[in-house]
């Protein structure tokens, strides 16, 4: 017993320890090559009034929201570095503790304006797509679900290659670009595969290829950043439908455009993002071939302020429309989310967040964006109030 307590204390010290401990244990050299080892873990409690959210039994209160990961990276030369990170999570019915290779890449930087990465790479998209799993990096317990859904993570990484660089513009600031192409891996424990089961569909494979890019301008106004991202993808899925007969789906067109702006001044941060996702998909099964056209729109604005080293407050307002061409005011075609957050930084490596969500709409049971048919068999109510208390450690 004492042994296990002392092990826990040592682990806590490792996570929440001082910079000196950090420097000694996690930053070292092997054969003269600098090596860094880092990790993170987070746990949340969620409670809602009526609707269950994110496949958890939130109406009864749920702790089924845990994730963690770790990475190692080595600088083999001044220009060449390699590294890898694993990630695991359990979020209600999603993830289910199946570890994934989050990223694993080699990165060679020829010049400041030109570098190449290859392997499994986090996709640069908008302000936070590549960092959305890292709880400690954000003010919020969960990022705007309209833009960075926890249950739909198909755009989070690709297996392929990136070209990237940074170009100084002297008095005009600098431009950063990333261009990429690759394959989006299967996500058998994600929200889409889970959600379609309520309709009798069993997805066996679901993947895509994608090409895209991101261009961001660090403007001469200190702290002001503006950018745009674009993805063109081609998705293919196979499985069986309710009668057990084959079901296939493929996209005729799948495009995503995102525009964003960020302003940081001292402890103040203002973010705004807008995304359009256009999907034209053909499904073939015993019901016959049919085509689905969806024009999703999402946007949010957020403001946060760090009052002191240990306290930050913030708020965001987010909107998601499943089909821009439908009736926008219907609760089954939109999700509006008003959010207020308080973040406490207990140490440099340990935070606690308390966050309230006041949502209107649920975006249809087949939108798979937070609300699912099988978790809400009593029928979805138009409004959802949700409390999230989330704590995270990183080293």
């Amino acid at each position, binding site marked *: 017993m004492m042994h296990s307590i002392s092990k826990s204390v040592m682990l806590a010290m490792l996570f929440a320890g001082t*910079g*000196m401990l950090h*420097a000694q244990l996690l*930053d070292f050299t092997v054969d003269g090559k*600098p090596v*860094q080892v*880092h990790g*993170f873990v987070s746990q949340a409690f969620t409670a809602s009034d009526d609707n269950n959210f994110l496949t958890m039994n939130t109406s009864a209160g749920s702790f089924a929201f845990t994730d963690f*990961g770790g*990475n190692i*990276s080595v*600088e083999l030369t*001044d*220009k060449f*570095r390699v*590294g*890898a*990170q694993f990630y695991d999570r359990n979020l209600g019915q999603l993830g289910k503790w199946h570890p994934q290779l989050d*990223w*694993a*890449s080699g*990165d060679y*930087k020829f*010049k*400041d304006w030109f570098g190449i*990465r290859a392997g499994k*790479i*986090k996709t640069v998209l908008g302000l936070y797509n*590549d*960092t959305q799993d*890292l709880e*400690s*990096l954000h003010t919020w317990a969960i990022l705007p679900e309209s833009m960075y859904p926890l249950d739909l993570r198909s755009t989070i990484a690709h297996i392929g290659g990136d070209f990237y660089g*940074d170009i*100084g513009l*002297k*008095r005009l*600031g*600098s431009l*950063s670009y990333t261009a990429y192409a690759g394959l989006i891996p299967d996500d058998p424990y994600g929200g889409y595969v889970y959600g379609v089961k309520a309709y009798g569909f069993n997805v066996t494979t679901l993947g895509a290829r994608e090409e895209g890019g991101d261009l961001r301008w660090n403007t*001469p*106004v*200190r*702290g*002001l950043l503006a950018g745009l991202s674009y993805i063109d993808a081609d998705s293919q899925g196979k499985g069986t439908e309710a009668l057990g007969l084959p079901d296939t789906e493929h996209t005729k067109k799948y495009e995503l455009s995102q525009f964003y702006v960020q*302003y*940081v*001044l*001292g*402890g*103040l*941060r*203002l973010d705004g993002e807008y995304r359009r996702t256009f999907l034209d998909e053909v499904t073939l099964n015993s019901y016959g071939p049919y085509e689905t056209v969806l024009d999703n729109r999402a946007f949010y604005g957020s403001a946060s302020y*760090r009052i002191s*080293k240990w306290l930050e407050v913030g708020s965001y307002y987010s909107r998601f429309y499943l089909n821009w061409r439908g009736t926008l005011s219907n609760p089954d075609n939109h999700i509006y989310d008003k959010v207020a957050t308080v973040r406490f*930084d207990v140490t*440099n490596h340990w935070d606690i967040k308390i966050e309230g969500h006041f949502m209107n709409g649920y975006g249809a049971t087949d939108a798979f964006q937070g609300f699912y048919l099988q978790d809400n068999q009593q029928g979805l109510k138009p409004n959802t109030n949700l409390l999230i208390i989330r704590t995270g450690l*990183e080293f």
Partner: protein
Amino acid sequence: MRAIKLLFALVALGLYGDTSAQTSEIRIIANPNVDASEISREELLRIFLITKTSLPGATHVEPVLETAGVSNELFLKEYIGRTNTALMTYYRSLMFTGKASIPKSFGSDAEVAEYVAKTKGAIGYVGLSASTARVKTLKVR
């Protein structure tokens, strides 16, 4: 309307903060192998944001930070425009996405100067009272 006015005021403050001449109470230091004798504010910012990793005459440069203290506060305020917490969050976002390692950081001017002196391409900052015998001082233009 008031919100828009406030936003414009904040942006104007950002512009002013970038272009106004300020009297520095810190010194930018570099390893003697760095050929440059001066550095622009824009280059310094990009080096510490790890989007620039070379300078004329130095194929590789690396930023070196202080973990806290007066020199650190002055440097971040004058050249980076982010709080220490925000800068660390930025570095962690690069590290956790596989894009860069977290730069070395030390607890005092003396430790920064010592590391910069022995590390090729290292660029850091120290207070005016710190010993800079084994490093070179870069003029910021």
